[in-house]
């Protein structure tokens, strides 16, 4: 098992390196191949009245005039051993993993990401718990009560949940629950878990529910179809014939067997969310990783986007690893192999 984990981790690191190379090329090599000069790239990062000389100075300052492999080497070196940057009067150290240095704010990206991870983590964890519990529960019930009013209503709502984009449901929810009824916190509210746990939950309640509404739908539908299939298996009939209580049949034999695909999707979804719940964070103005990515994209601040890309990729890789390990727990067939 340990060897398996070590092998997976090694592959993960390699994969991350490939991702940095690809992302870096997209941002810095492709525009150059398309004919943009270093000054063209730099012209995005100067004030509006800048002349050609100033633009060139900025290009040099940002290191855009160096050959692309030098720039990439500098970036990778920064990730492993850190780097330094010039603030004007002094030179500051950006310790590893220094994921670059914002062209716009002139601040290192990594501390920004670190300060934003708790927000995204809080959002993803709460939302995931809600949608997993809610989605699976509704899915199981729907499967057991197949064809009833409950099943149809639940699946109808689920379809709406999958179909409605979060920037719509989010704004609508804010408008109704926060501004008209005053039950939930207004947009942009966030309190740290450790500074005030109750306030934390109160502030995040609406984003959690909105997020869960979107995801739970898929999980409910997935669980339902999985359960329907499983519950028709011979071993379920056998279990029933043995006289096991229906609860045990459903939970221990039915649900457990349908969990594998759910777990796979859950790992991917959670990893993706940790890399930044872009839509939810933007809609609710939450200062998380996703919002950071949007700020980076809006301002053409490539180091920020690159930082989020790498962090997001890392989360997805780790989440997949965890899911693979969990398979063994859920599905004995994996364990024995």
């Amino acid at each position, binding site marked *: 098992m340990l060897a398996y984990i070590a092998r997976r981790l090694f592959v993960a690191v390699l994969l991350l390196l490939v991702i940095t190379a690809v992302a870096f090329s997209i941002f810095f090599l492709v525009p150059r191949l398309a004919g943009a000069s270093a000054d063209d790239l730099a012209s995005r990062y100067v004030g509006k009245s800048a002349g050609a000389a100033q633009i060139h100075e900025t290009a040099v*300052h940002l290191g855009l005039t160096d050959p692309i492999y030098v720039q990439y080497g500098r970036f990778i070196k920064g990730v492993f051993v850190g780097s330094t940057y010039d603030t*004007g009067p002094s030179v500051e150290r950006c310790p590893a993993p220094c994921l670059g240095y914002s062209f716009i704010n002139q601040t290192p990206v990594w501390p920004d990401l670190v300060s934003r991870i708790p927000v995204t983590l809080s959002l993803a964890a709460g939302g995931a718990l809600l949608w997993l519990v809610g989605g699976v529960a509704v899915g199981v019930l729907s499967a057991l009560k197949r064809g009833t009013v409950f099943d149809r209503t639940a699946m109808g709502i689920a379809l709406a949940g999958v179909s409605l984009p979060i920037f719509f449901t989010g704004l609508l929810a804010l*408008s109704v629950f926060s501004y008209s009824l005053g039950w939930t916190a207004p947009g942009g509210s966030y309190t740290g878990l450790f500074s005030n746990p109750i306030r934390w939950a109160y502030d995040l309640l609406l984003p959690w529910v909105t997020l869960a509404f979107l995801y739970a739908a898929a999980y409910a539908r997935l669980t339902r179809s999985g359960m329907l299939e499983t519950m028709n298996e011979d071993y379920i009939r056998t279990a029933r014939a043995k006289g096991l209580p229906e609860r045990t049949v459903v939970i221990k034999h039915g649900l457990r067997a349908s969990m594998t695909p759910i777990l796979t999707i859950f790992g991917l979804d959670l990893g993706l969310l940790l890399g930044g719940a872009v839509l939810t964070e933007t809609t609710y103005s939450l*200062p998380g990783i996703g919002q950071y990515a949007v*700020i980076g994209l809006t301002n053409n601040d490539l180091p920020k986007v690159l930082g989020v890309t790498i962090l997001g990729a890392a989360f997805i890789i780790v989440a997949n690893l965890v899911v693979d390990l969990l398979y063994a727990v859920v599905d004995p067939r994996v364990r024995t192999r």
Partner: protein
Amino acid sequence: MTAVVAVSAVAALVLTACGSSSKKSASPSSSVTPGGSASSASSATPASSGGGTTGFNAGVDKVFNPSTQKGGTVTMANAGDWDSLDPADMYYAYEWDLVRLYGRSLLAFKSAPGAEGAKLVPDLATALGVATDNAKTWTYHIRPGVKFEDGTVITSKDVKYAVERSLDKDVFPDGPTYFNDNLDLQGYTSPYKDTDPAKLGLKAIETPDDSTIVFHLKTSFSDFDYFAMLPATVPVPAAKDTGSKYKEHVVSSGPYMFATNDLGKEFTLVRNPNYDASTDPDTGRTSLPDKYVVDLNVNAADIDNRLLSGDLDVDVTGNGLGAAAQGKVLADAKLKANSDSALIPRTWFSVINPDVAPLDNIACRKAVEYAVDKVGYQRAYGGATGGDIATGLLPPVIPGFQKMDQYEAAAMPNGDVAKAKDQLKACGQPNGFSTNISYRVERPKEKAVAEEMQQSLAQVGIKLTIKPYPQGDYFKLYAGKPDFAKANGLGIMVYGWGADWPDGYGFLDQIVDSRTIRAAGNTNLGIKIPAVDAMLDKALQTTDIAAREKIWGQIDAAVMANASVLPGIWAKGLLYRPPNLTNMFVNDGFGMYDYTTLGTTKK
């Protein structure tokens, strides 16, 4: 990777959906005074004369809900983020408006409603600048007893140091370059590369004593007082300067100072105990709230919703309400009573390119001027809420504005077909001609302008082919590149311009001075009138304010007589003020609410 690409793609979609606009741009397409984004289809008729202190436009030209009551917290939100909170590194009108809470520049726009607000008054200085040597040397004196937040007395050297560091565009790329361009630098680049032990080696600024500061310019510049208003003159103590990190804690010289500053997320300002109101008799700051809370990167649609629900006090960018909220406010009498439609120093206009035949003939240009349906132009920007039909290039909020109507924009707003046909005959094209019209593809309003013009000009036989170009390169590669514009026959080019400050020079220089025209990247898209160039020079040597302001009006008239500018509308923004706010008015200096005078009844 696919997932990450998907995230980015989705993010890009969100951006489009939310209508966020990129703030950063090297191109002048995003000008300083915002306002372009604020208009939608509607037909509000602004109250021309509003008596009393409540109702629609109660905050325009007069104070809404006057009050001297101190206390409370004012909450603000920004859909984006500051260029930087560092006074050396900011270029947006709202940043210049708000910086006055934590910084005192030599001069400031007076905090007063109406035209008074566009006037400069002494802030850190004791009086307006004294010009000598034919306006090449400018002297100011620092008020005694003004202190930084730590209690240190502010001297002229702190101002000199502040201007010196603002010259370093490597560290502060966002601020304007007026000092770089006009001071007699003699090769000086930055205090960070200064060998002088006190880092005060710049010879263009002298500080003979602690209260006197003297600026030496390369050439005469009678408008220098506007430079003394720039945030770059907000004093910075050299010992506390941390370069690009100074924005994390700007040392306050104003009535408020930073209590918290979470970059990119939120900052709060509280009263500065070392600010003494008796040293600030001229600016009109009232400093009513005890605290300001400013949230950053807040969803734009949510900002509007929070404003209307009373959860938020001010949309700090002063962009005005978005399209959805505008519709809601204008349709609801109660909400509308809490809003102001303010003229801002910006004109949306088109250039009629004299380089492209047959528009090189003035009569052909005049035919276009007469034929265009000005109401259609206004409709493209959302009707009366978007702005007033312009009869000249210079916006009315700029001192020196003179009313005129050379092409009957006011008299016959739907266009004068008969006169247009006369002009076509005079230019030898009695049946009309064909040419192209360019606009910025990301701007639906400019597209609508092009389509409106295509329709109205067709009535006199002028056929327009519409040519959209991306806004990021509009000036660098297309409309702003004379060779390209000529080769591609761009006869009409749609765009707009906002002033850095409400002044003729600030507005006109970059769009009508033919000597600013370069090979590419121009914002003057082809206005080449020697008389106008001469008048600009004359204005800069005229130190008498009234005489100088008169010249701006004359330049406007000369540009219009040349028929190379087709004025569209003088822009307006629809601003909303929640009822709990007091002492609110639109400051003409910034074209948005004055942030140093407002108060709140909310505790």
